[in-house]
């Protein structure tokens, strides 16, 4: 249910695949979130590093939480370069009822931003520049700094 792709996502194809997967499973609500690279600060695109082992265990723990509410999560993310106006991130919730789907997509996307082990770089003038100012420290950061 977690898919990683080199470069930009084929959004229509992934959407259609997910929808077809869900269509005979009696889910009443299906929500998708698509994140697209915006043109700003003269960037040519973004680039991503992903640390897959921890990303998978993070995703699996969310899948478990979703399952306890009768829902299923899906996610796709790019690795490497993604041009402006193309998409690097998709997330989806299938659930019997709309309330759970609306709540889960929000919780999942927000926690993704805060904790998924993915690093973002601006592509600018052929350089790959770590987007430090838009990045968030993972909870528990600083553990190894000045231990007593």
């Amino acid at each position: 249910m977690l898919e990683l792709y080199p470069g930009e996502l084929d959004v229509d194809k992934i959407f259609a695949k997910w929808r077809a997967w869900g269509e005979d499973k009696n889910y009443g609500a299906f929500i998708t979130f698509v994140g697209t690279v915006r043109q700003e600060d003269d960037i040519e695109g973004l680039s991503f590093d992903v640390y897959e082992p921890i990303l998978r265990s993070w995703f699996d723990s969310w899948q478990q939480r979703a399952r306890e509410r009768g829902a299923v999560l899906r996610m796709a993310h790019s690795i490497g370069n993604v041009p402006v106006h193309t998409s690097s991130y998709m997330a989806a919730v299938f659930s019997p009822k709309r309330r759970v789907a609306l709540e889960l997509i929000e919780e999942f996307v927000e926690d993704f931003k805060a904790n998924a082990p993915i690093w973002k770089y601006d592509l600018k003038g052929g350089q790959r520049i770590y987007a430090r100012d838009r990045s968030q420290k993972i909870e528990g950061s600083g553990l190894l700094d000045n231990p007593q």
Partner: protein
Amino acid sequence: MVRVEFLGPIGLAPREVEARSLKELAKELSKDPEVKKWLSECAVAVNDKIVKDIDTPLKEGDKVALLPPVCGG
């Protein structure tokens, strides 16, 4: 020896360090200014599990990863 990996933008090669706990590892890593400057903003995973206890013991062959601030999506 434990293997230390520096993820994402840290851009350093993995290294083998002698340490029997995270506290010992922290002391070792602090000696290198190139690593030291990342410590205040990195989370730590032992064998791909994020840990929050500086007294976490380490054993031969453990893998420790440093995770700098993230931004997916």
